[in-house]
């Protein structure tokens, strides 16, 4: 009897602690989102998107240069990261599925996913920025691509592993060579999953600041040349939030608002597609 009571008590304590921990986590999340939304929304206006930063003291500055820079860096990163990630994941799940090497790559990718992104930033600083002699949008894009690759690689591998082997065998049995089996049957079956993986990968890097600090740096002027230092939203937020001017703070809130909403939106679309895909089966 005594034992049962003790167990129930321990159970209640454990339950209480875990509920508390869950609420603690949720509280800060909601707090951050609500404060970004409320403070950011009031700072949103047209000049934010269509005007470049104004000198301190002028209130009609915008962040056009940062939006464009962020866009260019993210697009270049995607052009590098998405093909490598998908092709690598395809190798792991298909051609190299029985190799020890593939397990190793898969495990390393898992570790890389949790790698602090500032480490990637300093790494790219030493192998790209130093040799080139200056900060550049390319270096920033390269750093983001390095962060993007393991995420896309692992989701691709997992999504392809979900495609039943019988389906591949059925295509082989018709006389299809392996690359056609992958292209026509495996990729098509996993299409929504692959798309979601890419979406989440892009969303992940779009919010990174640390790897850009040492690579693309920042640029107060509008530029579309990735060979120059490039402004990005995240680095701009970082600098403006630290700055002494009230206008800067406002702009930082507005930029945070745009990023949070965009990423929230991308993630929700991703989740939605995954859920729909699995409820259909």
């Amino acid at each position, binding site marked *: 009897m005594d034992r049962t009571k003790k167990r129930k008590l321990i159970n209640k304590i454990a339950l209480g602690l875990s509920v508390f921990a869950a609420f603690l986590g949720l509280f800060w999340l909601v707090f951050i989102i609500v404060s970004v939304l409320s403070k950011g929304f009031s700072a949103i206006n047209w000049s934010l998107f269509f005007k470049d930063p104004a000198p301190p003291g002028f209130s009609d500055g915008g962040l056009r240069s940062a939006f464009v820079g962020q866009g260019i860096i993210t697009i270049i990163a995607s052009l590098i990261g998405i093909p490598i990630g998908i092709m690598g994941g395809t190798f792991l799940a298909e051609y190299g599925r029985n190799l020890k090497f593939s397990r190793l790559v898969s495990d390393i990718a898992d570790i890389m996913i949790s790698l602090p992104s500032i480490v990637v930033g300093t790494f790219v600083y030493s192998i790209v920025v130093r040799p080139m002699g200056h900060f550049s949008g390319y270096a920033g894009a390269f750093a983001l691509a390095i962060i993007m690759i393991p995420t896309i690689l692992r989701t691709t591998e997992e999504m392809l592993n979900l495609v039943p082997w*019988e*389906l591949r*065998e059925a*295509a*082989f*049995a*018709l*006389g299809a060579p392996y690359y056609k089996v992958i292209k*026509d049957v495996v990729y*098509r079956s996993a299409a929504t999953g692959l798309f979601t993986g890419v979406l989440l990968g892009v969303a992940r890097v779009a919010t990174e600041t640390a790897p850009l600090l040492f690579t693309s740096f920042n640029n107060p002027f509008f530029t579309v040349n990735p060979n120059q230092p490039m402004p990005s939203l995240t680095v701009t937020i970082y600098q403006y939030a630290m700055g002494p001017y009230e206008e800067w703070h406002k702009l930082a809130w507005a930029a945070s608002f745009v990023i949070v909403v965009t990423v929230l939106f991308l993630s929700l679309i991703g989740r939605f597609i995954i859920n729909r895909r699995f409820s259909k089966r």
Partner: protein
Amino acid sequence: MNQVLLSVKNLSFFYGETQILYNINMEIYKNKITALIGPSGCGKTTFLRCFNRMHDLYKGNRYEGEILYKGENILKAKDLIQLRSKIGMVFQKPTPFPMSIFDNVAYGLKLKGIKDKKEISQRVEKALVEAALWDEVKDKLYSPASDLSGGQQQRMVIARALAVEPDIILFDEPTSALDPIATSKIEELLFNLKKITTILIVTHNMQQAARVSDFTAFLYKGHLIEFEETEKLFTNPKEELTEKYITGRFG
């Protein structure tokens, strides 16, 4: 007279060090249905998958002996793509590709390099008619194959195999995932397909073997125990093991 399409000579099969099939000798006759029966794990599916060299997809498998097809040993064939376009296969679960019904059936034709749209659509229609599915799908050829019912999907997969006009189609328990009505449709279909092709079918279901096949092979622990005309095998088996199995005393 029965014409031999394939002859199996001293076939043994190894998975790594484990021997799965032992010295199998038998003939597959043209335009006939040959059934492979036996308890679970007897090697009947393994045997079936030797005919289109499906085992080559996985490492550590080894064949010994011969399967002769038009004077050549299938087990030594270099061009598996060519071989598999002559020896079709239908699996246990329906395997619709994630594309339209039309594209599914046309897939094998496109693999063969046929580009002429008219020819493709004629052959797709012909295959769907042969697979007794045409009337049910002719108005929705371009909707996704996954919209079809399980039984329809299985007939579509049969049409996909038929479209490339194979000499033989291997069936690996094609009705075990289907309900009785869909099953009887497939059985009826198999019976009609004899006219245009040859069928080798693995089945768990002895009644099914008795109903549809002309010849039956009984496998037990990797050995071919008895190979006989279906009627003889089921009414008057020579081997004691066969009799025990078909009367349901084990398996």
